[in-house]
């Protein structure tokens, strides 16, 4: 078997993969991974050539091992779910995730609802806008000291900080989204006998969807950041807490691990929740400009 035959087999395999996954998707994935590949290579080369000592930058293997070392004492799935202190890794991940989900479940719907109301009604927006600008100016983390005084260290403080960030960002984005919806859509529902509620559900909510989705992006992004900061100072568990306490103990590999897990979770949320939502709504409705 010569080199030609090997090339043929490779080409056939490549075409099969491209057919199955789609050429554009593979291209996008490969291009998107270039910076990561460069970064990881540089990281590994540092370990090989020791440009910077391992106290500053640990080996990739150490970071990988840290994940399992942290989870070592864990006895069974149940203990992990109960956020038992023996299961350090899963407890940190699950408490951060739990806080994010809880804050999103409360903050996003309320932010959207009040944003839509404020977008529809001048009086409501006049009441809520100044307080919103006030709340936004004191960026999420500036509340941490006060929140610790009020709620102590733990869940309430982190939740409070996150809600403060998520709610107001969502509020402003939804409000602006509703204001940008053409009046003729509202009129076309009213003249068919639709009620105010029909207008909200059939016009404002879908019409403001481009802003609502970018609002979700922003509030989840800033929400995560606020969460990590809140956990560092006012938390007793979570990835932020883990990063901070590990740094104090000079466990640099755990710091790296925490940062990497945070970014993986965030990338996954964007890819598996927000992107599909975007595709299913505003792309399908032709509300965004799409390159052809």
């Amino acid at each position, binding site marked *: 078997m010569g080199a030609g035959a090997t090339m043929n087999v490779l080409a056939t395999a490549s075409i099969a993969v491209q057919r199955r996954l789609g050429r554009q998707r593979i291209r996008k994935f490969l291009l998107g991974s270039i910076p990561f590949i460069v970064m990881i290579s540089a990281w590994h080369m540092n370990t090989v050539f020791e440009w910077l000592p391992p106290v500053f930058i640990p080996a990739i293997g150490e970071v990988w091992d840290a994940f399992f070392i942290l989870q070592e004492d864990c006895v069974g799935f149940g203990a992990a779910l109960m956020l038992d202190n023996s299961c350090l890794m899963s407890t940190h991940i699950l408490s951060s995730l739990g806080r994010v989900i809880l804050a999103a479940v409360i903050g996003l719907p309320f932010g959207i609802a009040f944003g839509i109301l404020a977008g529809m009604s001048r009086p409501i927006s006049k009441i809520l806008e100044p307080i919103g600008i006030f709340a936004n100016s004191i960026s999420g983390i500036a509340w941490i000291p006060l929140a610790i005084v009020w709620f102590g260290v733990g869940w309430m403080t982190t939740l409070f900080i996150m809600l403060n960030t998520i709610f107001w960002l969502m509020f402003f984005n939804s409000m602006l989204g509703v204001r940008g919806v053409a009046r*003729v*859509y509202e*009129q076309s529902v*009213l003249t*068919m*006998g639709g009620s105010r509620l*029909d207008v909200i559900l059939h016009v404002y909510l*879908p019409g403001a969807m481009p802003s609502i989705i970018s609002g979700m992006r922003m509030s989840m992004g800033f929400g995560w950041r606020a969460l990590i900061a809140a956990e560092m100072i006012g938390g007793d568990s979570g990835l932020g807490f883990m990063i901070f306490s590990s740094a104090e103990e000079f466990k640099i590999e755990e710091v790296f691990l925490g940062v990497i897990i945070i970014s993986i979770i965030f990338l996954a949320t964007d890819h598996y929740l927000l992107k599909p939502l975007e595709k299913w709504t505003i792309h399908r409705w*032709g509300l965004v400009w799409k390159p052809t």
Partner: protein
Amino acid sequence: MPAKLVVEGLTHHYPDEYTGESVHALEKINLEVQEGELVTVVGPSGCGKSTLLNILAGLLPYREGVASVDGIQISGPGSDRGVVFQEHAILPWRSVAKNIGHGLELKGMVKEEREARVQDFVELVGLSGFEDKYPHELSGGMKQRCAVARTLCADPVIMLMDEPFAAVDAQTRITLQEELNRIAIATKKTIMFITHAVDEAAFLGDRCFVFSARPGRLKAIVDINIARERRIWADMNADDEFVRARDEILRLVREEVSVAVEE
């Protein structure tokens, strides 16, 4: 037989959006539209014809005069008056079928019943095969057909159309006009059609209301006695009645335009 739409002594002023000055849009309008009739309204721009339509649609509150449909005074938007707007007012987030069935959905009609009716109207406006498409996938003409079907499907007492074909290209406009004529025959719907195009007004109307320049007054009513079945654009230039009606409407409108210019 009592008229479907009655307007008596309707006068309207509104404050200008920028200067705040009071604009006298309509002055003592009296008109009636009979059941099954298609009336067209023409006039120079700014003659208040869109104001009239917004008042009839219930989107604009009025104080002086009376406007009623089926004897019920207009005091807000309602499903008895369907509107086809100037822009493509079909909802971008609803498919063609869901746009057309929207009025029935708002009335609370169950899905199975709704779907059968929607299908009738999809066929009536020639959108078969496009039921699941979204508005951004349609051409301008198809969007406006969808808008007409959306309004008709809710079965209003009267359909108000606000320059619905103004934004489409000339070829499509001719087709849409002939289709509206066909729909008027098929549904016997009472229609008020506002336009600034004189030939459109003469082609579509059983009667044409000509409005004067601001303040809008009902200046003249031109009767157009052409059987609906005979209204095909290819024959119109040889149709004496059409030519007469069109020329008369044109003359009436041009008087107003020159008045507006002199002012």
